[in-house]
Structures are given as structure tokens and as C-alpha cells.
């Protein structure tokens, strides 16, 4: 055996012994830590309803999760939105008389989601696939995330990414050429057990959208006599198509925490800051109190949200080609939303519904008040009674409405 061959054998031998030692150490390290567990196997059946601003959206949703062994979990969701009525944007753009229902507006959106979780020790890999279909909008999203627990399972870090593709058309205009948009999201979530009664989480998320990002139905309005000054027209106004930028980047940072009170109840606080490349800055906070009583669980919630306007937003443009990008989407205007929420859960006695270990019935009601700070209610013109003084264009009352959101669902654990 040559000297070189002897050296190779010695190195190989050394490597083998060291790897054996490493395996023993890893065994010690990992056996001292509790492995993570898969989510609960459960079936959820929900009826959801949103009613506000002239629009009623409701429908069913079903979510099923099944585990295979200790490392694979599969979930599937089917979700339907049945949309009826018409929001102020649709009414203003199409001249539909919502109150009389003269031109009924109805459509459906169907969403399907598939999820796969692979768990190994303290690492979880999550794959997701989602499709959403309407008669004028198709969307597909693929997502991937990996998470790992550290420090005796006190810390969980997850990295998430998703890619989505949208295809947009118009159901009232066959000459409208189908448009596309791509959506990418990147986020990191860190959740941390801080004390035996306090858990907190931090989320940082960036989104990048490219393509056709506007709503093909929505319009801006501009002064017909090119005489707009301080967003008031001396004459009347006309609609024109919106023009949005083809890119939209945004960043959001959210922090939330839940504290277990000295008696069995919990208080939760959430805060989020948001900014985007369109000039919108937003923040919201939420407080939630959850209180169990015997087989019941009660939840009380308050949430406040505010945002500034997009740079290219105006309620009323002075003339038709006032600037490169123009939008009058009310979601781009400065606005606040305030939500009060109540929820109640009842856990059915074991055995009432056979085959299931645990079953609950849940009812949640959220009342959302939406106040637009620079989006005016143009419907006052068409709703004006004969004899009333005309309201100058640009001086209509600010738009606001209340929405009620209902979630009624049954959950079964097995």
C-alpha cells in the first residue's frame, strides 16, 4: 500500500468514526426535543354571507383534512361565492337600478384548494394549489412553505412563497381581449413562546404583481367641460376607463400576540403596517377576547383599519387625460373600516354525533363600518327627487356603508 493509499484509508476511517460519533450526538440532540405534530384531522362545513353596499355574497365552504401516518397530512377545500345585487361601482358604471332590481346582477365564484403537509422531526414542508373560477376571471396559485421549530419548540420559523396567475375578461364585452396578471408573494413568519402564558408572532410579507391589475368594469369620472378645479365641476362629469400601472409591489409587517389570563380566557392583540409602490400606506389593529364557559366559547372583537390614497386616485379628474395613471376604485381611496365582532361556539356532548371525537357548532357575526374619505356617492344624481336642487359634481356626500358578515359552521374532529 502506497503512502497516498494509506492516507486515504486513514481519512476514510476517520470520517466513518466521526460520522458515527455525529450520529450519536444528533440522536441525543433530537431525542431530547419533542417532534412537531400534524394538524388535527377534521371536517368543517360552513355557510358564509356578506351583505353590504348593495351586494349580497354568500355560499357554502367545506374543508377536509386527513392525516396519513405521522408525517403526511392532506387537505382539500371547496368554496363558493354566489354574488347578487350590485356595488356602487357597478351601478355607477352600468346605470343599474339596484333598489328596484330592474337589472339583476348575479354571478358565481368557485374556489378549490389542495394542501399537502410533510412533517419530519421538527421540519414541516407545505405545498398548496388553489384555483378560483368566475365567468370573467380565472386564477391559479401555487404555494410552498417550509417551517422549523427551534430551542425546545419555543420558536417556529417559516418561509413561504407563492406564485399566482390571473386571466381577466369581461362578461358583457366579447371584444375585450383577455388580459393576464402574475402575482408573487414572499413571507417569513416567526412565532415565539415568550412565557408560559404568552405567545407572539411576527410576519413580514412582500408581494409583487405584474400585468393587468385593474378591474375592467370600473371607471373614473372627469369634468366634461375640462373645467375641474379643486375636484369640483361647474358642469357635469363623464366616465372613462381606469388606467393602472402594470406593476404593484407591497410590503407588510404584522405582529400579534395572545395572552392567557389568570383564569381560563385569552386576550389577543394584532397590529399591521402596510405600504406599497402606489403610494398607499395602511395600518390596522385588532383586540380580541375569548372566554369559555362550560361547553360554550364566546369571542368579542374590535378592529380598526385606515389607509391613505393611491397616488393616481381621484374621485373626480379635471379632464379626461389628466395623467398617465388614473383610478377611482374606492379601495384605492383614503378610507377607514371599523369592525365589531361576536362569536359563539358550542361543543356538542361526545357521542351525540357518532364517528366523531368532538363536534362544535359555531356562529360568528362581524359588523363592518366602511367610511370613504374621498369617494363620493354619485348615486345621489340618479336618486334625486324631482324638484330638488341639483348637487354640483364633486360635492356629493362622501360614500359610506355598513356590512354584515356571517360565518356559521360545523366542525367535526375524528
Amino acid at each position, binding site marked *: 500500500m502506497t503512502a497516498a493509499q494509506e492516507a486515504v484509508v486513514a481519512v476514510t476511517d476517520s470520517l466513518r468514526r466521526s460520522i458515527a460519533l455525529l450520529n450519536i450526538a444528533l440522536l441525543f*440532540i433530537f431525542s431530547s426535543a419533542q417532534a412537531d405534530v400534524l394538524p388535527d384531522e377534521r371536517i368543517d362545513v360552513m355557510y358564509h354571507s356578506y351583505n353590504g353596499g348593495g351586494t349580497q355574497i354568500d355560499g357554502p365552504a367545506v374543508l377536509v383534512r386527513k392525516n396519513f401516518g405521522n408525517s403526511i397530512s392532506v387537505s382539500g377545500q371547496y368554496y363558493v361565492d354566489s354574488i347578487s345585487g350590485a356595488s356602487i361601482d357597478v351601478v355607477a358604471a352600468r346605470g343599474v337600478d339596484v333598489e328596484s332590481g330592474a337589472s339583476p346582477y348575479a354571478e358565481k365564484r368557485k374556489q378549490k384548494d389542495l394542501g399537502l403537509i410533510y412533517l419530519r422531526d421538527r421540519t414541516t414542508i407545505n405545498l398548496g394549489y388553489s384555483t378560483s373560477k368566475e365567468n370573467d376571471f380565472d*386564477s391559479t396559485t401555487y404555494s410552498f412553505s417550509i417551517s422549523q421549530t427551534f430551542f425546545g419548540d419555543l420558536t417556529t420559523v417559516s418561509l413561504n412563497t407563492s406564485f399566482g396567475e390571473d386571466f381577466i375578461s369581461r362578461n358583457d364585452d366579447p371584444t375585450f381581449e383577455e388580459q393576464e396578471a402574475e402575482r408573487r408573494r414572499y413571507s417569513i413568519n416567526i412565532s415565539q413562546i415568550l412565557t408560559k402564558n404568552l405567545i407572539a408572532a411576527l410576519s413580514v410579507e412582500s408581494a409583487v404583481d405584474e400585468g393587468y391589475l385593474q378591474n375592467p368594469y370600473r371607471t373614473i369620472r372627469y369634468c366634461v367641460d375640462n373645467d375641474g378645479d379643486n375636484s369640483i365641476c361647474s358642469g357635469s362629469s363623464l366616465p372613462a376607463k381606469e388606467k393602472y400601472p402594470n406593476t404593484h409591489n407591497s410590503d407588510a409587517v404584522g405582529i400579534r400576540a395572545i395572552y392567557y389570563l389568570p383564569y381560563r380566557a385569552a386576550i389577543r392583540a394584532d397590529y399591521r403596517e402596510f405600504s406599497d409602490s402606489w403610494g398607499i400606506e395602511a395600518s390596522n389593529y385588532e383586540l380580541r377576547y375569548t372566554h369559555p364557559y362550560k361547553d360554550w366559547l364566546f369571542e368579542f372583537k374590535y378592529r380598526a383599519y385606515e389607509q391613505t390614497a393611491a397616488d393616481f386616485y381621484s374621485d373626480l379628474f379635471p379632464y379626461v387625460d389628466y395623467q398617465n395613471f388614473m383610478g377611482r376604485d374606492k379601495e384605492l381611496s383614503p378610507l377607514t373600516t371599523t369592525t365589531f365582532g361576536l362569536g359563539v361556539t358550542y361543543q356538542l356532548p361526545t357521542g351525540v354525533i357518532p364517528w366523531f371525537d368532538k363536534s362544535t357548532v359555531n356562529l360568528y357575526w362581524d359588523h363592518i363600518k366602511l367610511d370613504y374619505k374621498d369617494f363620493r356617492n354619485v348615486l345621489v344624481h340618479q336618486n334625486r327627487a324631482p324638484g330638488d336642487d341639483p348637487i354640483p359634481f364633486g360635492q356629493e356626500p362622501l360614500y359610506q356603508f355598513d356590512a354584515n358578515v356571517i360565518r356559521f359552521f360545523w366542525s367535526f374532529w375524528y
Partner: protein
Amino acid sequence: MIPSPKAVRGLLLLGLLCLSACGRVEPWVKPYERQNIADPLMSFDRDPISSAYLHHVYDAREAARGGDGGAGGGCGCN
């Protein structure tokens, strides 16, 4: 150049020490002290079907998106 067996063993032992150090970080909340944390009340997402729906409602009515602890997917359907 073939590294000496000593160098290989040294490098592996160094890695081993690092891993052992990571594994020995003492959790300040012991596993037997986590009964409150394990209570379903302390879950950020107690009922995923319900919270995903409410996120969708907010996404449709507000410009802000993300940063709320979701998986970063979204159907882009608002």
C-alpha cells in the same frame, strides 16, 4: 491535497460541538409548563376555514394585504 485525518476529525468535532451547543439551548418555558400555551384558546388560527374567509373579506375591501400570518397564498380573486 488530501487533508490529514487529524484535520478531518477536528473539523467534524467542531461541527459536532456547534450542533450540541444548539441542541442544549435551555427552553425557558419547560414542556411541563406549556398546558396554557397548548390550550386551543392560544391558537392563532383556531378554525382555518373561518379565518381564511374573513381575510378574504378584508382583502376585497381594503388595499392592504399580507403580514397577517397567512401562508402567503391568496386566490387573487378580490
